[in-house]
């Protein structure tokens, strides 16, 4: 067993600094000597670690020493065949999974509630989506996981598809039956790609849904910075031992920066060590805090914090109990309204609010005191802001009508139309209500009245509409037919 106490990248940086090497390379601030404001702003220690690839520090795109060692330690910690450090966010990790297995016109099976990075990857590589309608919980208006029946049917109907992409878990903490999906996919000769942007902790905590690597998936994008404690934008891509790691590296190197930040890399190193050594205890505490908060929220009245009781054996195969999702409409408030009140009235920032729910992320950094503040504020919102209960919109899920590939639509001749008059046309761009950042329309899909209604409602409730060229979203780019 290798020693997970090590932090090879961080150690190499410290050794480099101790050796007092004179720098005639980049970065030009020369460990802060040339830029006092930077040192003032971020601190000497931080700036002195902002270095460039070199023999003693290794090279991210072709690692042979400390970075290679960090990859090996990470692979061991995550129980993967190989682990890659990704510095352009989990967006890049997700895109690399798709670039690795899809060429132009290759099909990929995926749930509609994918992150926009997946759709953008298809615009770049020309893959064609085969969407599976994730189940919808009509009580809360959230999209769920994929049902096994739908997976089987879609695989049968699309035998040439290269891969199935699975969210593990979704933003709301919902997991599909990943092990069964892996079995079905592998029998059909397809790869399983797992978006674990919200799933780092699944690798370390007890009594949590199964992780991608443990379920036998082929590739997983794991956002260490989200719940694992590394710096923002640092992420990892894991592959099983059935994937040729050096092939994967060639794909990653198409888009990975050649000036990898040593601050980000060292933070991944340190986070991996902490997760391996203390993860079990940390996530036990996180689970306890979340469970406590869920119980207390449900005592306030009006709010409904959902948990394991929504598990249904299929579209909710497992629930990630570290997620504190709270349904708000029985209080007469949209999730986005509660999200805004928490910030503006109480100075509490939560992860997101959508039309019916809010989501608070509980992680490594939380203490009882902050949980009590959130609970105190929710109880005050109940006292001071509650209104007549609102009906849930029929549901938030809108079945996409894919007319052409995202790439073809994105690069087609376009015409801007007022969104109100765009029904029947094909969208040339991505439309999302943010939060929660799940696509309403992807390039290549038919615009319908239902979609226009949804956009109008989301805008009215204060969701920011994103993805369109027109930042006010009064107009939409359509494919000229």
């Amino acid at each position: 067993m290798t020693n997970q106490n090590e932090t090879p990248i961080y150690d190499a940086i410290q050794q480099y600094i101790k050796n007092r090497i004179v720098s005639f390379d980049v970065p030009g601030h020369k460990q802060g000597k040339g830029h006092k404001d930077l040192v003032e702003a971020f601190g000497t220690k931080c700036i002195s670690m902002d270095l460039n690839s070199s023999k003693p520090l290794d090279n991210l795109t072709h690692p042979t020493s400390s970075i290679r060692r960090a990859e090996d330690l990470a692979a061991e910690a995550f129980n993967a065949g190989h682990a890659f450090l990704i510095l352009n966010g989990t967006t890049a990790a997700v895109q690399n999974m798709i670039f690795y297995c899809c060429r132009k016109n290759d099909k990929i099976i995926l749930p509609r509630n994918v992150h926009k990075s997946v759709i953008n990857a298809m615009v770049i590589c020309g893959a064609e989506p085969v969407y599976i309608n994730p189940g919808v919980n009509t009580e809360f208006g959230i999209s769920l996981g994929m049902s096994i029946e739908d997976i089987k049917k879609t695989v049968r109907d699309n035998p040439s598809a290269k891969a199935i992409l699975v969210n593990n878990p979704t933003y709301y903490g919902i997991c599909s039956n990943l092990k069964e999906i892996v079995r079905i996919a592998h029998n059909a000769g397809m790869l399983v790609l797992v978006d674990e942007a919200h799933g780092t902790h699944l690798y370390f905590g007890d009594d949590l849904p199964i992780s991608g690597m443990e379920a036998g998936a082929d590739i997983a994008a794991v956002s260490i910075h989200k719940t694992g404690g590394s710096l923002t934008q640092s992420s990892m891509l894991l592959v099983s031992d059935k994937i040729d790691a050096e092939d994967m590296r060639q794909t990653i190197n198409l888009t990975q920066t050649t000036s990898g930040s040593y601050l980000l890399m060292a933070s991944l190193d340190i986070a991996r060590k902490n997760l391996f050594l203390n993860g079990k205890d940390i996530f036990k505490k996180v689970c306890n805090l979340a469970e406590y908060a869920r119980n207390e929220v449900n005592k306030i009245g009006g709010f409904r914090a959902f948990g394991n009781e929504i598990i249904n054996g299929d579209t909710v195969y497992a629930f990630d109990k570290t997620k504190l999702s709270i349904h708000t409409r029985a209080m007469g408030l949209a999730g986005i309204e509660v999200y805004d009140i928490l910030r503006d009235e109480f100075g509490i920032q939560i992860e997101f609010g959508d039309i019916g729910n809010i989501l608070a992320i509980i992680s490594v950094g939380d203490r009882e005191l902050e949980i009590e503040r959130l609970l105190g504020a929710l109880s005050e919102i109940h006292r001071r802001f509650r209104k007549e209960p609102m009906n849930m919109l029929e549901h938030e899920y809108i079945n996409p009508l894919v007319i052409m590939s995202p790439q073809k639509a994105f690069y087609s001749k376009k015409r801007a139309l007022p969104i109100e008059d765009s029904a029947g046309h094909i969208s040339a761009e991505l439309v999302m209500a943010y939060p929660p950042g799940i696509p309403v329309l992807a390039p290549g899909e038919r615009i319908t009245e239902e979609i226009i209604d949804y956009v109008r409602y989301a805008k009215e409730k204060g969701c920011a509409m994103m993805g369109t060229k027109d930042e006010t979203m009064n107009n939409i780019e359509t494919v000229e037919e």
Partner: protein
Amino acid sequence: MELWYTENHTEDVKFSIRVNKQIYSAQSEFQRIDIFDSKEFGRFFTLDGLMMLTEKDEFIYHDMIVHVPLATNPDIHNVLVIGAGDGGTVRELTRYETIEKIDMVEIDKMVVDACIKYIPQTASKFNDSRVNLFFEDGLKFVRDKVDAYDLIIVDSTDPFGPGEGLFTKEFYGNCYKALTKSGILVNQHECPYYADYARSMKSAHKRIKELFPITRVYQAHIPTYPSGHWLFGFASKIKDPINDFNAEKWSALGLKTRYYNTDLHKGCFAIPNYVKELLESADSE
């Protein structure tokens, strides 16, 4: 040998007391607790190095945080005290026979234990049958209480440690809910002079004012607190601390006090212009 306790009142201002002997030092789950003996101030007690009380001047703080609301409304029966682990506030409250119940919520049991052992001057009435001690977060305790207390006294540390939650809008709002229809909230309100403290004072004032119809600020002179000029917040649903004050009625109780008196009751709400301006500027922020 010279041994001095020093608190930084600001980055550039220090306050020191010559110490005869350190009596106690411990790190609890929440904070560092120290107790010292000194010639000038007698025994004194600090949390995270910040002065909480001295035997010589604690009467000022405890008189003012207790007698002002009780003289405003002599019909107070149920009291909630938050913080106040040294026991001084409870000690003053137990002098009122009209009070039927005193719930005290202190997050740190080690503070109470240390004060019982080493500062009997203040921690003398925890065994009064009306007193119930709860060792938990004040915000948590008050969250599910409705129409339960005639008076809530927030005797907290500064808002940069475990006491942070006790300066928030969610806390004050939950206190409003926990108070009866004639309820009063009194809190230690920091000092107006040094900028860091004044900022805390302003934000506390602004948050309370958005929730309570009647809000006033009153002051006292406390030699061992930063700048020596300390404020208290008075917030209530219907009782005005000056218009509803009945001096004869309070005097008839025959309570002997070293700092508080009925003239001071009216006078302590008269605050300097610069403090008024700070409070007014908080309203418009």
